[in-house]
């Protein structure tokens, strides 16, 4: 061992390395809306997902290295399914899953040379907005309990700032999607995101059994067009008929 490297320096180097890797990727946004939790990723791929279903009420979103977060996702599906099978479906919680991920990421960060270059959100939709849970996990295994919205990935600060300005509690799906897309467009000064370059999914508390649902490009386009004209003021007043087409709960 020719050189002594202090533990502080070692951890700092690893953290810098992980941060650099994460900031190279595109961003993902998670935010609450009136019927549940909305996930939006700047991701043109139809097959390589950044947003996925874990269990009945739980979904997963990630940024960073695909093979690393995919590995965590597959492990999470196993964790959820085995617990749901051996206990009951209600006994699978986002909190439990976040703990497992935190332990896992923490150990990888301290015990291996190369930390995972990933950041995750584990979210569980509740019966109402107060009981929704959103956990954000970083590469070193720290967990944060978030409310309202989360931004992660490249330019996360700019995206989060835009969300902070635009986010309002209890907004409709189309308004929340518009806020999210605007925030993702804040990654670069001249970025414009079409429906086809977005990956969008919801945990909709009005669905039955499995609450996770991906939105097809056509539906994303519709929702964006809906919220386009009115700006925040219109607050989705005329949107009820369309927005509620598959949820059945879109009033106001």
């Amino acid at each position, binding site marked *: 061992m020719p050189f002594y490297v202090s533990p502080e320096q070692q951890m700092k180097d690893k953290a810098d390395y992980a941060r650099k890797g994460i900031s190279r990727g595109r961003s993902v946004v998670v935010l609450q809306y009136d019927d549940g939790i909305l996930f939006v990723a700047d991701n043109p791929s139809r097959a390589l*997902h950044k947003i*996925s279903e874990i269990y009945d009420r739980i979904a997963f979103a990630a940024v960073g290295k695909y093979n690393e977060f995919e590995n*965590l996702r597959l492990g999470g*599906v*196993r964790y959820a399914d*085995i617990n749901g*099978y051996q206990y009951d479906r209600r006994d699978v919680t986002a909190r439990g899953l976040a703990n497992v991920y935190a*332990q*896992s990421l923490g*150990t990888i960060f301290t015990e291996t040379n190369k930390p995972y270059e990933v950041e995750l959100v584990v979210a569980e939709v509740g019966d109402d907005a107060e009981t929704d849970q959103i956990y954000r996990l970083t590469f070193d295994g720290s967990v944060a309990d978030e409310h309202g919205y989360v931004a992660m990935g490249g330019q996360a600060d700019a995206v989060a700032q835009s969300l902070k300005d635009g986010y309002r509690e209890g907004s409709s799906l189309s308004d929340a999607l518009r806020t999210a897309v605007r925030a993702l467009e804040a990654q670069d000064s001249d970025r414009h995101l079409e429906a086809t370059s977005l990956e969008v999914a919801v945990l909709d508390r009005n669905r039955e059994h499995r609450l996770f649902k991906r939105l097809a490009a056509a539906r994303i386009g519709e929702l964006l067009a809906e919220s386009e004209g009115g700006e925040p003021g219109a607050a989705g007043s005329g949107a009820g008929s369309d927005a509620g087409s598959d949820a059945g709960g879109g009033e106001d």
Partner: protein
Amino acid sequence: MASHESHTGRLPGLFANPDMSSFTEFLGAYSPRSLPGGRTPPASRAGDDIPHGTTIVAVTFPGGVVMAGDRRATAGHVIAQRDIEKVFRADEFSAIAIAGTAGIGIEMVRLFQVELEHYEKREGRTLSVEGKANRLATMVRQNLAMAMQGLAVVPLFAGYDEERDEGRIFSYDPAGGRYEERDFHSVGSGSVFARGALKKLYRPDLSAEDAGLVCVQALYDAADDDSATGGPDLTRRIFPVVASVTSDGYRRLGEDEVGALAQAVVDGRYDSPGGPTAPLR
């Protein structure tokens, strides 16, 4: 199972091992005794005092399939339960029902449901109808040692095939043999009587509702002649479980719908106890 403990705090080795998309295979490696086939079969043959599920019927119609089961479980000559459910949603486009040892059968159904969902979540696609039917065959086969000790489970599987736009039925034997059935099928103790009824009542152009009616008629005939099959219980309002699988997915008929079918069947039997008659020529 040292691999579970080897990385304290991380997703244990098996959870992180990416190569299995089968939940059953994973469970078998993680906790072998949690699988019906992973347990040591009893040394002597089990008696009649363990509840058994009885009759299941399935009928195809253009664009889908209907499956139905009576509500009785018997332990020897005793009715163990009068409102047991033996027809289940397997996933969005398939249904599974069980006859035979109820405890192991219900465990197999739960395992099969998770198996399909697990594959879907991991792979991002659903299994083909044949793929689902083959997975179930493996599960039945793993139960062979139990079956030899009198704890057999015989499922019936029905799925909607999106490519062909039709319903398909698969039956099994206790050794895991998988057989695709044409038009209709029945399993369980009353199945011989049910199948006779199905044969006379089936037509290729049934509507979804009529296919449900055929099922309830066939179950009535099974209950008529088999003591282990329960007929519709109008006093307690316990009716067969009837479910359809079409391009719209799995749908269990509501109690009022099945109640109306059951009432119609029972009313008809006042005039003609043997049920609808088939033309002789």
